[in-house]
Structures are given as C-alpha cells and as structure tokens.
C-alpha cells in the first residue's frame, strides 16, 4: 500500500513537471513557425473555407489574405512591434470567423467545426508570446 502511494506521488510529480515544461514552451518558445502557419492558413484556408461555408464576404475573403501577407512580411522583417501588430490583426480575423460562424449557427455543424476556436486560441497565444518577448527585451 505504502509502495503504491509512493509510486502514485512519483507519477504525479513527473506529470506535473511535464505539464510545467509544456506551459513554459507554450509561453516562451519561439513563435515564428506558428506565426507563419497562421499566416499561410489565413491566406489560403481562411478565404476558401469561409467562401464555401458562409458565402462571399469581402471583409473575410479579401482583407483576410492581405492580413496573412502582412503577417508574413512582419515575420520576415524581424521587427517585434510590427509582429505584435500583425499578430493582433491575425487574431482579430480568426475571432471574426468564429463570431461569424457562431452567428450563422455553423460553429458546431460545419466541416471546419471547432477549428476556428483552435486557430483563435493559437493566434492569441502567439500574440501574447511576442508581447512578452518585447517586454522582456525592453526591461532587460
């Protein structure tokens, strides 16, 4: 019985360490690959999916890909404040898609399903990471 308790505590400690490591990676790791993925999805996937599922919308189908291109431009420029701005715009577009799908009642029934929420979450995480990096560089 005692051995089982010790083993359970060991497993708990190990899981906690793994969880903390994941949290640290999520908060502090380099976010450029995520930003590029989000930007590419915004350029190609975003207009295609919204056009096929919601119909034509100039805001999402024209401005969305432009925001994606801007995000790629900022990532390649290595300018932090520009990246923060671009990530905020990207997050806004993914949030807009989520709200549109929710408004149309398609968030839980369309083929893209909860994917928009995942993209929202991911883009917000990326935005927070870059802001943290910016603050860290300012404060030293």
């Amino acid at each position, binding site marked *: 019985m005692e051995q089982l308790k010790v083993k359970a505590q060991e497993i708990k400690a190990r899981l906690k360490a793994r969880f903390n490591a994941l949290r640290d990676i999520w908060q502090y790791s380099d976010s450029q690959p995520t930003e590029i993925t989000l930007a590419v999805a915004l350029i190609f996937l975003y207009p295609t999916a919204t056009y096929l599922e919601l119909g034509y*919308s*100039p*805001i999402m189908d024209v401005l969305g890909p432009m925001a994606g291109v801007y995000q790629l431009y900022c990532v390649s420029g290595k300018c932090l404040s520009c990246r923060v701005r671009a990530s905020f715009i990207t997050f*806004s577009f993914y949030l807009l898609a989520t709200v549109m799908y929710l408004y*149309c009642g398609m968030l839980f029934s369309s083929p893209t399903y909860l994917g928009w929420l995942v993209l929202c979450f991911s883009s*917000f995480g990326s935005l927070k990471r870059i*802001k943290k990096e910016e*603050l860290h560089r300012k*404060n030293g």
Partner: protein
Amino acid sequence: MDNNTQIILAVVTLLGSAGIWKYAEARLRVKAELRKEEQSTNDTVLYRDDLRNRVEEMDKALKEANKELLALTQKVAKLETENSFLRREIDILKRN
C-alpha cells in the same frame, strides 16, 4: 448574410478583440513590472551585480598594474646598463 450584418459583426469583433488584447496586455505589463521589481530587490541579483562591479574594478587595476610593471622593467633595464658602464669606469679609474 447581408453586407450590413457583416460590417456590424466585423466592427463588434474588432472592438471585442481590441478589448481582450488591451486587458491581456495590461496584465502582461503588470507581471513584467513585478518581475523587474522582484529582481531589483533580489539578494542573488544584487550579489551578482556587486560581483560584476568588483570584476570590472579588478580588471582595471590589473591593466594599470601591467602598465606600471612594464615601466618598472624599462627602468630596471636602464639602470642595469648604467650600472655596467659605471663599473667599467670604476675599473678604469682603479687601474690608473
């Protein structure tokens, strides 16, 4: 969905995302400030800064000592030369 609804939803979402981001940004700033304050009062950090200053001072002192050592070596070499000439002169005088 008509255009007006789309525009209204877009504006509302933009305002909402701006609000969310402002809140999150303020929290991040507060956390960063707290961390900075914590670091400025942290004994380990203060000790490290103190050590860094000491290393800088010692480095400066070492460079000055090196300069002085070089000057002294030059003086010794000069004096040795003078000494050897003087000895030679003394020898000549003794012989005479």
